[in-house]
């Protein structure tokens, strides 16, 4: 299962290198595990004699696949069952089969662009909020990450330090990100102090629909840009230096070099980053939920929050509708993930 904030497939593949010879913290921590593994030597040999090499393969795969089965595959089946049944019960046998009713409820609208005309207006509010969020967030995120990567790729001093600086917010928890910025945006916060210092009137940022939306985008860019910048930086560093040196000989302007060399050669990486950012942006929840709680009103309520509240929190709890909504979101994510996998393969062949 991919939890929020988890790295995508294969990100962070460590370069093969020799394990350090000296006794490291890792070795000390591994000592008890080694002892346990040693104690299992006998039983394992017995098991191997009994079940053969095939039995050992099954044994190695079992724990991981059992967890996958129990907490990903089985729930997915239950999700489909929920989405086709009605009522507020969570216990499956006590739910009644209603067919595609839940999907119909979510999808029926006189005008899909106007949530008020929909049977489930909240769902469409969440859908359009998410579309608005994704559209702005991905563009700003990729622009910021790209700028950062280009700058870190220049011959600047202390590049390692700067790389670390941009990575700092990536490590922070969404709750911490939300709280840090909530404290800054509050009525008597840092931002309003700066406003007053500049001779402007303080604003109640988080009770203003537009500002709440802008800041929900802003803090998620703040929290994630460093991760994408590092991926793009890796792509930039794979571009051979001598191409730029040749361009410099020909007195090519930096802007032209960017358009004619950097962009075409980075394009495969950039596409992967964009799709990855899309996948994450569609699921936005934690940091925005902590910052705005979906408010003011419903103006920053995104799809995951809709699913969470419909499934658990709201007084009109309806697991069937939540399941149907999450399956539809899942469909979008599957398409995006398949695109990402195809793009990654294509890029690695380039």
């Amino acid at each position: 299962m991919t939890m929020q904030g988890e790295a995508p497939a294969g990100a962070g593949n460590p370069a093969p290198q020799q394990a350090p010879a000296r006794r490291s913290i890792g070795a000390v921590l591994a000592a008890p595990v080694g002892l346990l593994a040693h104690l299992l030597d006998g039983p394992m040999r017995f098991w191997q004699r009994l079940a053969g090499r095939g039995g050992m393969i099954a044994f190695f795969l079992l724990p991981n696949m059992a967890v996958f089965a129990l907490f990903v595959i089985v729930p997915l089946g239950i999700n489909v069952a929920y989405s086709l049944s009605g009522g507020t019960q969570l216990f499956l046998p006590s739910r009644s089969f209603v067919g595609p009713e839940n999907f119909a409820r979510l999808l029926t609208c006189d005008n899909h662009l106007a949530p008020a005309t929909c049977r489930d207006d909240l769902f469409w509010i969440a859908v359009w909020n998410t579309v608005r969020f994704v559209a702005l967030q991905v563009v700003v995120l990729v622009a910021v990450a790209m700028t950062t990567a280009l700058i870190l790729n220049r011959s600047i001093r202390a590049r390692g330090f700067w790389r670390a600086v941009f990575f700092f917010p990536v490590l922070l928890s969404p709750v911490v990100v939300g709280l840090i910025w909530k404290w800054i945006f509050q009525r008597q916060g840092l931002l309003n102090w700066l406003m007053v210092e500049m001779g402007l009137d303080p604003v109640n940022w988080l009770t203003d629909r537009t500002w709440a939306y802008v800041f929900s985008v802003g803090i998620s860019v703040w929290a994630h840009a460093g991760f994408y910048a590092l991926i793009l930086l890796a792509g930039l560093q794979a571009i051979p230096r001598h191409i730029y040196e040749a361009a410099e000989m020909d007195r090519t302007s930096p802007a032209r070099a960017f358009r004619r060399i950097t962009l075409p050669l980075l394009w495969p990486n950039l596409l992967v980053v964009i799709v990855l950012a899309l996948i994450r942006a569609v699921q936005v929840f934690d940091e925005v939920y902590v910052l705005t709680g979906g408010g003011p009103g419903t103006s920053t309520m995104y799809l995951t929050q809709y699913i969470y509240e419909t499934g658990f929190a709201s007084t009109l709890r309806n697991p069937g509708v939540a399941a149907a909504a999450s399956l539809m979101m899942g469909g979008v994510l599957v398409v995006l993930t398949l695109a990402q996998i195809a793009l990654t393969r294509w890029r690695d062949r380039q």
Partner: protein
Amino acid sequence: MTRSAMNPVAFLTRRRGGKGWHWTDVVTFGWLALSLVMIFGPALWLLLSSFKTPAQLAEFPPTILPYAAQTATVETKTGPKALPLYTVELPDGSSAVMAELNRVGIMANMVRPEAPDDPVKVNINARKPLREVAFATDNYTTPLKQFDFARYLRNSVFVTTMATIITLITNSMAAFALSKYEFRGRNGVMMVIVATLMIPLSVNLVPLYSVVSSLGLMNNLWGVILPTVATPTGVFMLRQYMLTIPDELIEAARMDNASEWQIYWRIVLPLTAPALAVLAIFSVVWRWNDFLWPLIVLSRKELFTLQVGLNTYAGELNVQWQFILAMTVVSIIPVLIVFVFLQRFITAGIAGTGLK
């Protein structure tokens, strides 16, 4: 030109090759400076605010550093007392440091600390509190002692440690099977793992809840831990790494009558140590930061993890920001340790091979 011969401005503004400033240098400098302020500014503001008293947090405009009212011990009629000090504008135009005995309306009775028998009536608009930089460490000790934050901290440590250990064991076992054996259905297993990559928590939220509750793991820290341990990312990463370990090593071990289990933990696992370290770091950060799933599983207050506890206290009607801020700082500490000591492994990992 030697370094010592340069004046500071030339040193700071010099450019490689000495060709002077190009607009790209200006952009670079500006972007880095802006990023530094934007990234560490908010974190620093959090840190400074976390040491302010509630009264100070309510102040607007705020001060940058945390202050506390300065006091002096004054001999009063009822014995020595610690009284708040003020700088007072006296009618004759001079100013003096005085302590407040008591206050009636807008007038306060004030004395010079060195002459406690000579009170003066002062308008409160003609005085300013005398303050010194002071760190309100109560903000840290109170929630840890009187609220449940020490417990939340323990819960978070428990969840993070257990989840990371189990993740390393299960993922490395699966990765070993998938990288070092040819067997029927291997591609099928790989497909399942890719598929699980496509089904994030937000899609499976409701049914996962029912699975975990039917296992009796609601309001149980294991209900938080177990669903997270089989990360597809981890399996991929370790498998990729194990593929680089030469099969001859394993064949040689088999010749020496090593069991498959011994090959796994005696040969392959130690050689995978660098990748295991990266996965361990990732796992610690993921599990420490998890929010949505613990929020659903844990509804009893004493079981909250730090993230859930912080969100709950921050969502209360009367938010006690001084405690929230301090506990936020506490929750950043492990991440900060990872950042300072281990981030080069992560950034080198991401930057080294990217998304392969």
